[in-house]
């Protein structure tokens, strides 16, 4: 069940420091939205604010509105835990739980929320999620082995399986391929193309070719200087961004004339 996210006038703070300023954007369901931009421009911060992971850090806060299918995620009576249940996240570095087996890692989202599940039901979720993450064939004979024994690319796909096992509406990916080799990256990009049939996907990436390959929409973040807040400079269909961007800064960045 993919959902649409609308962000209006979002300001994101770390303590008193304004990290991202005035973001207005609509993220379409069943598509991949890529966020690109130089380091420190706030794209990861913005991504983390979409499922309220931003406020996990001490002093971090947000002003403005993030609305998912009519529901304000930052309303006073919205429970951040519920938000995170419907908006999953995959991190830059693969982070499977080291104490758990592959099987337990996949089912962790359900188990940790102590959702009662029959064994057969759990088996089904694990197989479906691992198949969804293109990992089933590689691990089906060693589901009881620790997840940390897999290769980096497999671990990242395990984390994706873990994220989709709780059936979120939206999947956020924070540079999911930056720690992986090209073959694993390709596996994950193929996977994203499949997943966008079911989920809304937002991906932060430093790799512009990757953004061009996988996404329908692309947002370019930039900042004027150190200590200045990051802004969303341009948000357009990916084809337009990479062929005929509206803004000069975007063109400079993607053509490598920048930084």
């Amino acid at each position, binding site marked *: 069940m993919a959902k649409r996210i609308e962000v209006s006038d979002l300001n994101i703070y770390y303590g008193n420091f304004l990290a991202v300023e005035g973001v207005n954007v609509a993220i379409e369901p069943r598509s991949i939205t890529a966020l690109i931009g130089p380091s420190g421009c706030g794209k990861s911060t913005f991504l983390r604010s979409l499922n309220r992971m931003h406020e996990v850090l*001490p002093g971090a806060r947000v002003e403005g509105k993030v609305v998912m299918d009519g529901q304000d995620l930052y309303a006073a009576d919205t429970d951040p835990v519920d938000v995170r249940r419907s908006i999953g996240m995959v991190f830059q570095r693969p982070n499977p739980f*080291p104490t758990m087996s592959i099987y337990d890692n996949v089912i962790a989202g359900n*188990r940790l929320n102590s959702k009662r599940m029959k064994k057969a039901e759990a088996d089904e979720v694990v197989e479906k999620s691992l198949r969804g993450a293109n990992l089933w064939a590689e691990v089906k004979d060693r589901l009881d082995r*620790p997840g940390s024994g897999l290769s980096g690319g497999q671990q990242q796909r395990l984390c994706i399986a873990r994220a989709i096992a709780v059936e979120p509406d939206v999947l956020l990916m924070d540079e999911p391929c930056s720690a992986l080799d090209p073959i694993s990256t390709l596996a994950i990009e193929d996977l994203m193309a499949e997943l966008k049939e079911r989920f809304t996907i937002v991906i932060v990436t430093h790799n512009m070719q990757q953004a061009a390959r996988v996404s329908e929409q692309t947002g370019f973040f930039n900042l004027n200087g150190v200590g200045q807040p990051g802004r969303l400079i341009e948000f357009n269909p990916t084809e337009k961004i990479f062929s005929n961007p509206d803004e000069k800064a975007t063109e400079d960045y993607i053509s490598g004339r920048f930084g």
Partner: protein
Amino acid sequence: MSLETQSPVRAAEEPSGPIRHRRKLPRLAPLALYAAGVAVGALLSALTGFSLALTVFYGAVLGTLAVYAGSRAVEGRRKATDRLVTALVTTAFAVAMVPLVSLVYTVLDKGLARFDGQFFTNSMFRVVGEGGGAYHAILGTLIITALAAAISVPIGLLTSIYLVEYGSGRLKKSITFFVDVMTGIPSIVAGLFAFALFTLIFGNGIRLGVMGAVALSVLMIPVVVRSCEEVLKLVPNELREASYALGVPKWRTVVKVVLPTAIAGLGTGVTLAVARVVGETAPLLVTVGLITGTNLNPFDGRMATLPVFAYYQLTQPGVDAQAFLDRAWTAALLLIIIVMALNIVARLISRFFAPKTGH
């Protein structure tokens, strides 16, 4: 070591490039110089009446000087400094080992005399001379230490969870500060605290096993807090974030992700904290006292414990003083064995409970 291997083709005679050839002392030369140093040292100490300690001391100093001088002449300054510092570090290590080895040797030597079955099965009830044992004291120590752990571990663990996962600002800082202060409390003060506390509640002359457990837990809690805090800090933040991102509430994240990940370190920390207090004497002396018979109820009257048992055997021997001394040494030996066993247990815990990597 040898720079020759890095420049095998360069001619040996006239080093001119940036990679120079260096002459080296023959491999056995330092050893020979030290042997010579010890020989001269023996002669020197013989001047003032021969003594082994003095011989070793002179030998170490003279040998080190000789090696330094020789190395400086042959190998140059950098190598000579290297050898000098190596000698200093090794000496420091040897000096640190002297008391340890000496202590273990003495306790083994004197303690093994009574390290027999009777020591583990008999109490001191109606024993005034030979025989008798520390059965009552062994069980007393185990009971009181277990009770102290039962009090300290929940408090200490929960405090450390608060400090790492929840605490912020002034409260966290002041807790950390006071825990540090508590770490430095003299053990007798902890004993007097428990003594005063129970005297206020139950009146004068009260002696209970549980008083000792309270006193020990005052000493143990800060150790548990600090070691658990350090271990919990080591749990990567990424795991917490992974759990939050799955929509897991914070308390569940702590219970089901953070604690299982840290379980090995937590077990090790708790075990070492137990080892830290198991040999405490002063607080038990004032709170638990000593009896000669077996009392296994920590809520009813005096109990015997190994450290206090050893203390009284030593300070108040009966008619057959040697028997009492032997028992004191054996109790000391047993305490060392218990502490060593706890340390081994701690190592085993950290080995077996550590997260598996799957290889």
